[in-house]
């Protein structure tokens, strides 16, 4: 294809997206569109899968059967969400093995929030309330993104996610209505998860390198800062209901703007964790790699069994 032909195809492609037409896997697409989507969808899938680890930590120690069943269901949902997203990503012509390889080698990223430890049961509450709350705000606009398989996966994910946030908030509410120690535990969890949750929306608009292109492709509908503000506005009153304090002395409702003002984010910490120096980066990746490598014999055995059964069927038929 000549450069002029590619330019022409690109123009037609951009026009389709501008008209709100969806792009499906076998349609022609610019290489950059394919690569950007592989990067973003896989990063999203990896986040779901790695995100199972901090919560998996508490399944056996959940304080009641009700809490345990809910937490199990939530972690199982996250596995499911990872699978929807991996499947969507594979339609772009990359294999599951390559995707895992990128995660395991550190080439692909996942959400930094999962590199923080879950120290107490209250962390299950704070994660559901804050981390899933932030995730929902990030994810809802993606239900309308331009790449069909990604949009369809996100519709399913969003539908399932709202229980995650509610179960987290209920845990917080129970602790806040409990003993002094329980309430202190909830406050401590909020203290530790608040700032990392704000960082989940990514760098400020001024620092964000992908925003403009992503807006055009409808991978983004609002900027990082707009989404972060939406999260703060939505969450601050919920903390008031719990009767615990968001760890930001500058947090204050601004009558003029109708939004909450909040203090500066420690971006050095954010970049440290992104670059692999968070409290649990090593542990999380090790857990993933061990699960994949330790499970290899099971995958091989299942395949060998399937092949043997297939041969038997063929032998019987002939």
């Amino acid at each position, binding site marked *: 294809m000549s450069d002029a032909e590619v330019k022409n195809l690109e123009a037609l492609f951009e026009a389709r997206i501008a008209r709100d037409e969806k792009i499906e896997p076998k349609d022609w697409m610019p290489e950059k569109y394919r690569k950007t989507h592989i990067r973003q969808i896989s990063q999203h899938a990896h986040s779901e899968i790695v995100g199972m680890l901090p919560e998996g930590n508490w399944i056996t120690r959940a304080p009641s059967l009700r809490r345990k069943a809910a937490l199990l269901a939530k972690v*199982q949902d996250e596995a*499911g969400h990872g*699978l929807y997203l991996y499947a969507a990503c594979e339609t772009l012509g990359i294999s599951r093995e390559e995707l895992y390889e990128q995660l395991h080698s550190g080439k692909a990223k996942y959400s930094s929030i999962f590199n923080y430890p879950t120290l107490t049961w209250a962390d299950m509450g704070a994660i559901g309330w804050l981390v899933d709350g932030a995730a929902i705000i990030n994810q809802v606009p993606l239900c309308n993104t331009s790449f069909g398989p990604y949009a369809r996966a996100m519709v399913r994910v969003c539908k399932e996610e709202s229980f995650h946030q509610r179960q987290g908030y209920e845990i917080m509410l129970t602790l806040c209505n409990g003993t002094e120690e329980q309430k202190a535990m909830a406050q401590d969890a909020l203290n530790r998860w608040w700032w990392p949750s704000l960082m989940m929306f990514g760098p400020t608009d001024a620092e964000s390198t992908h925003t403009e292109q992503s807006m055009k492709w409808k991978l983004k509908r609002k900027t990082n800062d707009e989404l972060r503000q939406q999260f703060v506005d939505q969450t601050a009153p919920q903390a008031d209901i719990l009767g615990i304090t968001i760890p930001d002395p500058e947090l204050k409702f601004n009558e003029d703007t109708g939004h909450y003002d909040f203090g500066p984010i420690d971006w050095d910490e954010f970049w440290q964790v992104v670059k692999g120096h968070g409290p649990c980066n090593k542990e999380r990746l090790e857990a993933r790699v061990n699960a994949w490598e330790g499970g290899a014999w099971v995958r*091989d055995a299942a395949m*060998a*069994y399937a092949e043997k059964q*297939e041969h038997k069927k063929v032998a019987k038929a002939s």
Partner: protein
Amino acid sequence: MKNNWPLWEVFVRSKNGLEHRHFGSLHAADAEMALENARDVYTRRSEGVSIWVVESKHITASNPSENGEMFEPAQDKVYRHPTFYNLPDEVKHM
């Protein structure tokens, strides 16, 4: 041994009376495992009463770059639609 599990497409009937619809895909070693995984991945909240799985390699798909030859001929066959035919107003329901 380095054998990757093949890809399967999953179709789910959400309730009797409705058709099976494509829900997504997954990897599994064989058809039985594909069905079990499909149950766990796509029907955790009672989304279905029946599941079909088919190995993706068995699906033959049309090519979007040939959509012109494939689908455009239907566009100029307006006589396939009821509104093409002129009837007097007295004929009320037809």
